[in-house]
């Protein structure tokens, strides 16, 4: 446990010691700020009975943050260590492979959640200005952050796998971005696809991040969604562990 915590701390420290970490924080801050002005514009434009969190995740900004940011966070985790050689130093200490994978994933997830904190500030500002209790409504906010955590976990575990596969950070980022965008494209039109009734449509409906986020943002925690993200994350972390172990088979 001690070793695990030391590793997580190192991961977080690494994120803040690098320029990349601050660039990520800055970009998320900028895009959240833009989305705030966007939402204000919409609210001024006329009646809209959607919850604000829903307006937010349905905007392009949300995906513009989520999809590119996760690969950038995880691209360092294994690829950079392999490139600089510290991977060898790490793997010759009495630390288990699984421990390393979990620590890297936890570090990435914590950093990811940290970058989303400004969203709370956005909602708080809106609530302050409009005196409308719907903003920052506890259940919806909790749902939205739970959804973010779950989606982030899945995307970050994909990123860990991509990073473990290569020693180039660029390739790692591209690979995990592709996986994320792939999932997102399937998520785009779930209702239309499901209406067709074919197998692909139903699968698309099941894995649709849009639909999941819709439920979460309304404060509905559907166990099917939770199971989907948790099992997906476990699968990708398992694959990552196998890739890390693979040096022992070569």
């Amino acid at each position: 446990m001690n070793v695990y915590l030391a590793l997580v701390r190192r991961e977080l420290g690494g994120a803040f010691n690098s320029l990349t970490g601050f660039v990520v924080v800055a970009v998320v801050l900028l895009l959240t700020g833009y989305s705030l002005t966007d939402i204000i514009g919409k609210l001024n434009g006329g009646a809209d009975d959607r919850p604000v969190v829903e307006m937010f995740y349905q905007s392009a900004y949300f995906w513009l943050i989520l999809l590119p940011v996760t690969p950038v966070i995880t691209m360092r985790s294994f690829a950079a260590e392999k490139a600089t050689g510290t991977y060898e130093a790490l793997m010759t200490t009495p630390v288990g492979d699984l421990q390393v994978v979990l620590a890297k994933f936890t570090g990435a997830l914590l950093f990811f959640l940290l970058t989303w904190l400004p969203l709370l500030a956005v909602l708080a500002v809106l609530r302050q200005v409009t005196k409308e209790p719907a903003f920052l409504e506890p259940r919806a906010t909790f749902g939205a952050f739970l959804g973010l955590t779950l989606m982030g976990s899945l995307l970050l575990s994909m990123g860990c796998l991509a990073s473990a596969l290569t020693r180039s950070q660029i390739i790692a980022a591209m690979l995990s971005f592709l996986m994320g965008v792939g999932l997102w494209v399937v998520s785009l039109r779930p209702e239309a696809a499901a209406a067709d009734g074919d197998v692909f449509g139903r699968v698309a409906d099941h894995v649709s991040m849009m639909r999941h986020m819709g439920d979460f943002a309304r404060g509905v925690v559907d166990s099917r969604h939770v199971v989907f993200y948790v099992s997906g994350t476990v699968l990708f972390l398992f694959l990552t562990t196998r890739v890390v172990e693979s040096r022992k088979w070569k």
Partner: protein
Amino acid sequence: MDDVPMIEVRDLTKRYPGRTAVDGLSFSVGRGEVVGFLGPNGAGKSTTMRILASFMPATSGTARVAGFDVFHQADEVRRRIGYMPENNPIHLDMRVREFLKFRARLKGLGWRRSRERVDTVLQQCGLMDVQRRIIGQLSKGFRQRVGLADALVHEPDLIILDEPTIGLDPHQIRAVRTLIKQLGERHTVLLSTHILSEVEMTCSRVLIMNRGRILAADTPQNLERHLSLDGQVVAEIAATPAAVREAFCDVPEIERMDLSAAEGEYTRLALTSKDGQDLRVVVSELVRANGWTLRELTRSKHSLEDIFVHLTKARKEDA
């Protein structure tokens, strides 16, 4: 436990696709030895070390560290090894003290113990003054010391250093060597290098490696002795070459004689003996008998460098 050798390697082989990096290697290292792995680039030194540090498995053969198998009991082995990989990879974005503490925790030291040990190794490696500096801003010599401190921090029985002095300037090399010598007093050390003077100075035993095999294993002094039997004797004598040739041509022990003009009135004479005898006495007696002046009389010793070139070249010609 004490009678178990620190390192025991038997028939170790590592094959990469299309290439055999280590080829049936067998050797053992006793406790308290400082052993140098010497060989040209690509001889299989790093691969052997990586296997010993249980970073990757061998294709066949066994390797044991302190009696533990490096593959099946990897954690036991790793706890006992302080390994500094090639090019000394360390986290350049961390501060010296922070890094060493992090590494101490990874190696299973508790909070209090890691603090004590970090203080000790900082002192031992002369890093006290830079402990709060960022590693990336330190000179290469200091970084190397940080790498050494990292290898030492959990008090391992065995220290494996892969090219510890590569890329350093002469002063830094000297400092690192002194440090390694000190380590040899309390730990078993296995280091690799392709710098010959380094093993001559720091190691009690040398393993000369080429193409994945050990060509010779002995103390540096013994290696020199064995191979200096065909040593040459060089003399500078104040006489004409013709006179010198005449005086020496009848000596039966001489196998080969080379004459050349030296500075001033002198002639430079280089003699090779037939069966490894020391020709210096013969030379001095003949010079005295002829009443010449002798300016120089030396027996050229083979340095480790000659031995190395000799052994690795012979191997190349075999292939």
